[in-house]
């Protein structure tokens, strides 16, 4: 039902804005500077949804990929520009939390959200919005041609038959890459995880910069198998590429797009309003258009190629581990695979 009206708010928002402008109410608008890694089209929908209840708060976005926006926020640490960080990976927000850059705040309705998708401190420094998990894209046409079987598990991908046929995102530059690596280290233990990656490395043809590329490359038949994330996998298959999505049985590494208030903000009230919206059911329904799993347990998205029980397939994730060990893990990864990455 709701979805039928989704496209309309644009018009009504303009109408409302025009009416407000006529009465001079616009003069009292607050403008929030929001740093985000969300996609542009998502931002449009989210802003509309937010402004339905908060017409007096304007959102101005600075948008970039997770790595870039994280770099930016850290670079500005001494003098933060943003009021709110919206839709950036939890591993990054954990870093900001550790740096003391976030103002803890429990938005209205926070207790209704799935607890494991948000900060464990109370009040939470960051609130989760939606989950993206590692999946494996497998090109059925090329697989058949080359006699390469469809993998069922992470362990399968380390078998010699996949030599030179796997691509995965570089954990240093890609959020998807990092959540996969931190996932393996958590599931298999540190020693087991590195041993697994040593074997996997023998099969990896390319470490890409982005988490989308491996699945797109698999879809284009450049490489048979790509380690990517759920939404991109769904999208590539939807567009007609001959891929199957594999959800390895050991469990999927994952991360949460999350939001938090920057401690230095001078617009705390407006920032809290935005955080309140983040936790609403309505907001979660907007996330559900792009993600298979969202923080509000009553909102059940349905992406055609992602199983409904995705929440059962993901691992138990420790974001504090992922954030505090980030630098160490990346350095180790670089040492092991960076040096012999030339093929």
């Amino acid at each position, binding site marked *: 039902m709701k979805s039928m009206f989704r496209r309309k708010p644009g018009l009504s928002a303009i109408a409302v804005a025009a009416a407000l402008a006529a009465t001079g109410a616009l003069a009292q608008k607050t403008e929030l500077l929001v740093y985000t890694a969300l996609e542009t089209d998502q931002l449009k929908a989210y802003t509309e949804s937010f402004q339905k209840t908060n017409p007096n708060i304007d959102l101005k976005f*600075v948008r970039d990929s997770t790595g870039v926006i994280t770099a930016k926020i850290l670079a500005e640490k001494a003098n933060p520009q943003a009021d709110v960080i919206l839709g950036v990976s939890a591993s990054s927000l954990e870093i900001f939390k550790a740096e003391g850059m976030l103002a803890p705040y429990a938005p209205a309705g926070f207790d209704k959200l799935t607890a494991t998708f948000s900060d464990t401190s109370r009040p939470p420094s960051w609130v989760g919005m939606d989950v993206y998990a590692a999946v494996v894209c497998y090109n059925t046409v090329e697989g058949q041609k080359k006699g390469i079987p469809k993998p069922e598990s992470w362990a399968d991908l380390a078998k010699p038959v996949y030599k030179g046929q796997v691509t995965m995102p570089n954990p240093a530059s890609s959020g998807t890459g990092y959540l996969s690596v931190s996932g393996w280290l958590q599931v298999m233990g540190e020693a087991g995880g590195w041993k697994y990656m040593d074997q996997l490395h023998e099969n990896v*043809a*390319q470490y890409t910069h982005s988490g989308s590329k491996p699945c797109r490359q698999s879809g284009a038949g450049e490489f048979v198998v790509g380690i990517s994330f759920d939404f991109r996998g769904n999208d590539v298959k939807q567009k007609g590429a001959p891929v199957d999505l594999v959800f390895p049985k050991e469990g999927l590494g994952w991360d949460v797009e999350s939001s938090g208030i920057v401690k230095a903000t001078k617009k705390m009230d407006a920032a809290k309003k935005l955080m309140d919206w983040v936790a609403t059911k309505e907001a979660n329904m907007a996330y559900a258009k792009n993600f298979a799993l969202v923080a509000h347990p009553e909102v059940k998205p349905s992406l055609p190629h992602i199983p409904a029980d995705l929440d059962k397939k993901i691992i138990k994730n420790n974001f504090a581990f992922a954030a505090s060990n980030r630098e160490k893990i990346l350095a180790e990864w670089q040492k092991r695979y960076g040096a012999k990455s030339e093929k």
Partner: protein
Amino acid sequence: MSATPDPAYGSIAPGSPQLFGRVYRPRLRVHWSDRVAHAILLAAGAALAVFLLAPLAMILAKSLESRAGEFVGLANFVSYFRTPALARSIWNSAWVSALVTAITIPLAFTFAYALTRSCMRFKALLRNVALVPILAPSLLAAISFIFWFGNQGLLKALMGETQIYGAPGVVVSLVFATFPHALMILVTALSLTDARLYEAADALGTGTVRKFRTITVPGAKYGLVSAAMVVFTYSLSDFGIPKVIGGNFNMLATDIFKLVIGQQDFAKGAVVAIILLAPVAVTWLVDTRVQKRQSALLSARSVPFVPRPSRGFDWAMTAYCALLGALMLAVLGMAAYASFVKLWPYNFSLSLDHYRMGLVEAGLFSSYLNSLTMAFWCASLGTLFVFTTAYLLEKTRGMGAWRPFVRLAAVLPMGVPGMVLGLGYIFFFVEQANPLHALYGSMAILVVCTTVHYYTSSHLTALTALKQLDNEFEAVSASLRVAFWRTFFRVSVPVCLPAVLEISRYLFVNAMTTVSAVMFLYAPGTVVASVAIVNLDEAGDIGAAAAMATLIVATSAVVCAVYHVLQVWLDRRTQAWRQ
């Protein structure tokens, strides 16, 4: 090599107007308009200091700081060299650049030889085809080679077990991208030969090979060195190509990106920037020295070389150039073709999907418009700045101590890779304390950075044109107490219009295609088309990336055509005096 300075190259010979001017200097300096000239020159120099030297200084500073901003001396360098993966990139970048130079120079030399020394047919056409890569962002070649030789490439069969990803792809793409740059330099070098040398050799019955070895090559020696330097530097600092087709083959330019963007390690990024700056600075120094000695090559008594028809040779040259031209078009054409293919390699039907869904619906068309905006401002304001500064340097007097500094700042950008410049810009402008902080994330900073990045060539073009103009114009104007800007607008600009247009075209096309300098500087609202290509490719959307690259080539081509028409028209109207 004769040491006599040649007036055509602008050296000051005794009795020249410059000296004439100097004699009367005390009287001439009285005119208040000179002070205006000084003020502008001062401002221009200050601008170059702020937008070139200060960012570079910031890189140096950052490389000596820890992440927390404390001074740590050379610790970052030490830890860099202790990371084998990073240190290895130095070697990778070095040998790839050397190999590209070794391949490109002979190819381009033969092509240039054909253009200048043979009577081959379709010269103009072949020359233009060979210059086509200039219209495209360097990434286009890499994208195209993936469609030709990638795992699902049309000619994958030719590759056997070899992968195009990695060094092979990087090398061939760089050869394509650097070819026209080398060609232009070598054509100039080969056109500068004195025909009398060949006449003398013929009279003495010298053989063809010997003539080539003893006259042609030595004559073009400086051009060869210069072209080799340009190709080597380009290869060393290009970011787009290794990013797209490099696979796991790490090079310095991609390392900077990974360190700064991926790992947020600004200090190590600065270290790589300095490592990148060092060899480039060396080649640049060598080149400037070599260029200085070049000037005495042609004298007023030289006779231009006119090639004589020779059937076999001309045909061979036509065949060679046609083959290379065809290869160029194949590379360009593949990117254009692939941008229309619906779902490579499973559905080869043609559609506009990549343009419609991949670009317009994805909200990326605005980045194309941003590119046009940026190119427009570079081509207008950038040209104005470059030409005015060159004019003031060349044609006005006074402020003797300031001039060498401005001159140096004007030729320095050639030695600064775009990635390094861009990184320096973030370091410098992100600081809140910087009064120019407001520029950060604006379109203006992209325009400034791009203009500075391509400053040297533009400056040299302006200088060459201005030097052809007799300084007597200024001397006479000054003695008649005419303000310098009158002379500037009524004499210098009209006479130098071809050069002004050339600078403007050069800045426009480069602004459309540049990646490296703006890679760190764009804000969400100012993403330009070439950056969008990197992002699209990074996300694996290579079809849309090809579409955007094709759009850029088409735009650059149209713009060049417009400039050409303008040039022809202007030539007719303003250049009659040259006859």
